[in-house]
């Protein structure tokens, strides 16, 4: 087949080469008759029925190249005064129709140039005579040649052929007629030959479609074409032909052609007609892609020009009507296809009508109604997962995702949105929920109403809890779900989801602290329902949010007090909060206890300490004590790993040193406990270090009077500042630490020395200079006895400490005090 084609083509090329050679020679000797004869012989090759469209095209292009030279020759004849009338008549004597009509077109073009007859008459003649070729492929190429010949010779506005030669209407009707006839030929191609060749024929038709489309391109290129002309004379005719041809391929291609070929404002002006046409197309035509193309075209137009959709053009309504009609009439359209239409419309509304929420809402409502009409919901609940179901699911996902980037939180106000979400299977719902959350977070749009929060959680349910927790599915499903849940809980995807969810508390922002608290409570309820795996991720940020809220509530309470005292507040009057700081702390307490009991004792413990500090800052010493106590309890029961114990104890020490309003009894109880725990550490080195550290608790550095604490007015200010000092017990601790260190690791001595020096320098009354001197000589001895135990770092540390002492000795204000330290 292919070989034969090559052979046919080669033979044809040979003839063309030969004949064109003789034709040119005849032209050189100015022998018109001979030139015509050879041109005829050359064109005779186009009568072939053996070539495929592609190869016929090759041949056509080759012959066109040669024919162009013949046309130029005719032009020279014409310029030298030769009448084209006679040549036009002469070429009509050729008995074979294909070469005759090619020559007629060729001469006809020059005939127009000669102006011996009005252009419109010649064009009319050509378009009429050309009907003689009814063979689809040969006819299409011939008609294409006619459009080429007439290209710059139409009586268009501003053309030299306008006037006597006709006007733009003549040009339009010429092109329209050629378009119509070309299209008919093209459609006819479909119905030729055996049914089994249908695929091949369709491919061939696709190869030839440009020959039809060219006519529309020419129409769009007319200078004299304006909207009115397009609306009144072109589009109706083109549409009439498209509908009349009743051919799927032609309808698809030509509708697309219209969109691409004509300018945007024409489309805007004729949208109604265009869309009405869309509803009348053949069933198999993919109207959606046509509509999408049109919508994109318009949307891009507005994006590029920066204009808005003109109010007088109800584009959305028109598209919507069109889609509604389509869905009504094409009853066998699949759900996924109808949803795709709604998605396209949604995107169009988003792009062309930014801020028109009701349009988007309308689309979503329509989509949800469409789903409701089918058995999709029940099928997906039954776990049907065939390909179509999947596709539909995907489409719902796409539909839901599209408005997110521009609307984000505002989708919360659309009831249809959550309705649609609920149609999705759990995992797909989860996908959309993630997307929703991500866009909300990336836009950092605050959630400032309780209902909003509730809606958000309703929409992101799959992220917040497991499926079986949400729906009462049958028991044998539970096992599966449990498996899924457990396997998913440490997957990266799960972590990422939970990190997203964990950011929600930071979005809860409102001026009124009461609202924030209410939102926090809603959030906590949701998080609590998520199970222990999720709580580990979600509770900490929630608790931190509560902590910062506590601070705000406290400030508000302070301002209320100031207001009551008659002071003018900088930000206007303040009402007392419904929920007091204490209430917030109570919630915190509950929450942290829940966190601790659901398997997250360590974060709970650290959070207790944070809360304790916050409570302390708000002068709620009792509450602060409770928090520390809870933390200690957790330490006692839950922290078993020695390394973590060390870390935890450090945190305790740090927290307690930072607390300023505990009562002495509470403080003493707590630090005693910590000293005990330090003493109980398993590793000697740890013991030594921590005991030394807890010595600080007994002789804490002077507490800054008001630094690091909130400025407090009114009643809470009467809480006394903690003043505690027990130098003896701190010495005890130091000595105990030193003793342990002696058995453990002599490297620790240097650290002890530092701490002794510190106490010495801040005038701890029980620390004597001889302790320091003794310790130095102890270090020297030990190091001298066995150098191998000394770490290089320790040695450097030690050297630095010694040089520090020397430095102090040389400073006048310390010289006296440090002088006795000698070694």
């Amino acid at each position, binding site marked *: 087949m292919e070989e034969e084609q090559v052979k046919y083509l080669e033979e044809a090329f040979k003839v063309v080469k030969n004949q064109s050679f003789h034709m040119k020679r005849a032209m050189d000797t100015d022998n018109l008759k001979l030139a015509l004869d050879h041109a005829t012989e050359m064109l005779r090759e186009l009568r072939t029925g053996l070539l495929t469209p592609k190869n016929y095209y090759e041949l056509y292009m080759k012959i066109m190249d040669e024919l162009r030279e013949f046309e130029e020759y005719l032009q020279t004849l014409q310029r030298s005064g030769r009448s084209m*009338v006679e040549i*036009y008549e002469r070429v009509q004597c050729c*008995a074979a*129709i294909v070469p*005759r009509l090619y020559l007629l077109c060729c001469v006809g073009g020059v005939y127009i140039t000669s102006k011996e*007859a009005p252009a419109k008459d010649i064009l009319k003649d050509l378009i009429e005579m050309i*009907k003689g*070729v*009814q063979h689809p492929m*040969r006819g299409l190429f011939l008609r294409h040649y006619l459009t080429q010949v007439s290209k710059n010779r139409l009586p268009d506005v501003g053309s030299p052929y306008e006037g006597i030669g006709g006007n733009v209407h003549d040009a339009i009707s010429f092109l329209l007629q050629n378009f119509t006839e070309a299209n008919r030929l093209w459609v006819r191609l479909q119905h030729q030959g055996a049914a089994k060749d249908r695929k091949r024929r369709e491919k061939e038709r696709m190869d030839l479609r440009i020959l039809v489309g060219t006519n529309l391109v020419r129409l769009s290129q007319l200078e004299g074409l304006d909207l009115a002309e397009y609306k009144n004379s072109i589009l109706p005719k083109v549409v009439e032909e498209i509908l009349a041809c009743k051919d799927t391929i032609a309808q698809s291609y030509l509708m697309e052609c219209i969109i691409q070929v004509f300018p945007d404002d024409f489309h805007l002006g004729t949208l109604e007609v265009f869309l009405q046409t869309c509803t009348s197309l053949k069933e198999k035509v993919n109207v959606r892609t046509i509509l999408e193309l049109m919508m994109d075209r318009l949307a891009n137009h507005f994006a590029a020009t920066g204009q808005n959709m003109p109010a007088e053009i109800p584009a959305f309504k028109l598209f919507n009507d069109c889609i509604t009609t389509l869905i009504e009439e094409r009853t066998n359209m699949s759900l996924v296809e109808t949803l795709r239409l709604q998605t396209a419309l949604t995107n169009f509304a988003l792009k062309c009508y930014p801020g028109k929420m009701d349009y988007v809402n309308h689309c979503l409502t329509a989509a949800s109604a469409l789903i409701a009409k089918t058995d999709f919901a029940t099928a997906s609940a039954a776990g049907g997962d065939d390909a179509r179901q999947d596709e539909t699911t995907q489409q719902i996902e796409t539909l839901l995702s599209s408005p997110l980037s521009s609307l984000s939180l505002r989708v919360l106000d659309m009831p249809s949105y959550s309705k649609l979400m609920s149609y999705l299977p759990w995992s797909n719902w989860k996908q959309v929920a993630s997307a929703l959350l991500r866009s909300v977070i990336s836009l950092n749009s605050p959630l400032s109403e309780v209902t909003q929060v509730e809606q958000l959680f309703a929409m992101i349910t799959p992220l917040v809890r497991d499926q079986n927790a949400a729906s009462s599915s049958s028991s044998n499903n539970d096992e599966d779900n449990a498996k899924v849940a457990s396997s998913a809980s440490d997957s990266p995807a799960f972590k990422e989801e939970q990190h997203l969810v964990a950011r929600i508390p930071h979005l809860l922002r409102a001026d009124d602290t009461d609202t924030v608290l209410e939102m926090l409570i809603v959030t906590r309820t949701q998080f609590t329902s998520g199970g222990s795996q999720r709580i580990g991720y979600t509770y900490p940020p929630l608790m931190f949010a509560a902590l910062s809220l506590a601070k705000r509530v406290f400030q508000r309470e302070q301002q209320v007090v100031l207001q009551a005292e008659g002071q003018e507040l900088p930000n206007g009057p303040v009402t007392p909060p419904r929920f007091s700081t204490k209430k917030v702390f109570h919630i915190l307490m509950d929450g942290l206890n829940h966190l601790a009991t659901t398997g997250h004792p360590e974060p709970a413990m650290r959070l207790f300490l944070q809360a304790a500090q916050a409570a302390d800052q708000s002068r709620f010493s009792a509450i602060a004590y409770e928090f520390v106590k809870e933390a200690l309890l957790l330490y006692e029961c839950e922290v078993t790993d020695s390394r973590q114990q060390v870390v935890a104890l450090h945190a305790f020490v740090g927290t307690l040193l930072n607390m300023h309003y505990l009562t002495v009894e509470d403080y003493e109880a707590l630090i005693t406990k910590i000293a005990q725990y330090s003493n109980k550490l398993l590793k000697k080195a740890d013991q030594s270090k921590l005991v030394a550290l807890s010595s600080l608790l007994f002789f804490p550095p002077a507490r800054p009077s008001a630094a690091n604490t909130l400025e407090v007015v009114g009643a809470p200010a009467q809480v006394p500042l903690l003043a505690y000092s027990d130098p003896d017990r701190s010495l005890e601790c130091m000595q105990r630490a030193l003793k342990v260190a002696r058995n453990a690791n002599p490297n620790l001595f240097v650290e002890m020395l530092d701490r002794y020096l510190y106490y010495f320098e801040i005038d701890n009354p029980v620390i004597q200079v001889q302790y320091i001197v003794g310790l130095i000589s102890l270090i020297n001895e030990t190091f001298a006895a066995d150098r191998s135990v000394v770490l290089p770092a320790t040695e450097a540390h030690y050297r630095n400490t010694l040089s520090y002492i020397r430095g102090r000795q040389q400073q006048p204000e310390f010289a006296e005090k440090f002088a006795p330290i000698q070694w």
Partner: protein
Amino acid sequence: MSLFASFTTNPTITINLNNQEGRLRKTIRVQGGDPIDLPVYSGNENVSGTVDISVPPGKKIEHQGVRIEMIGQTELYFERGNAAKFTTLVREFESAGTMTQSKTYPFEFSTEKPYESYSGMNVRLRYFIRVTITRNYSNCVKEQEFLVQNYANAATQAVNQDTAQQGIKMEVGIEDCLHIEFEFDKQRYHLQDVILGKIYFLLVRIKIKFMELAVIRREAAGVGPNSYNESENIVKFELMDGAPIKGECVPIRLFLSHLDLTPTYRSVNNVFSVKYYLNLVLVDEEDRRYFKQQEVVFWRRADEQSAVPLEGGQHRGLRMAPDRMVNV
């Protein structure tokens, strides 16, 4: 002596026709022979000229008489030597005597020539002038042929050109298979005319490969048992390539001036007649032919040779059969 002389001396006869400048000449070919270029006369035109008889110097020619004839005759190819003369005019130049020097004789024949010259498949009609020097043993003869074309007189021209004349319009078909309607704008065409027409396809259930219009000449010669009827295609003009569908309409435009045509002849001298037919032929993909013949009359217009005029203000190259509504 004289006897010997008569054997050896041959006079040269030359026939010169008058008024040859600007006269139309045509090349004809008889039965595939060599082309001959001849002057054309109209039927009512006088044929005049001179005859030179040159006698070689010092010779003399004895003869029984010198005469000139203008003959019009029909010849059937299959009956050699049986020409039927329908016109014979004789003028005597000399009675029996002796010619001693060259001499020129003027002549003029003013008789009506009723028929046109014709050279067909089985018959020809020709005119010629013959000069004969009658002698005892062998005559000395010279012939000069010329062509005659008869232009329509005012009366027939008026009939032929009647603008109201009916064209040919027919609806033909094969039931449930092919149904077409065609029309030609006239029934009578002059030889420089253009046949305009249209073919409407009302029903197409066969796969048509192409359609052509043939101009057929049908010549009937002889009478009785010796009659010969033969047809030939003057041209096969392709009208359509490929298969149309119902509702299509294909135009016809055929220029006659480029074809080798004669007017229609009806019973010329009761010897022959020539008729013309338009044959519309459709050929399907299995090479079956569907056709319909229609006689048309061709006639010769008086102003045939004048420049092609604009018809209806339009170049005739652009003329079309008028549109009409067709019920499809």
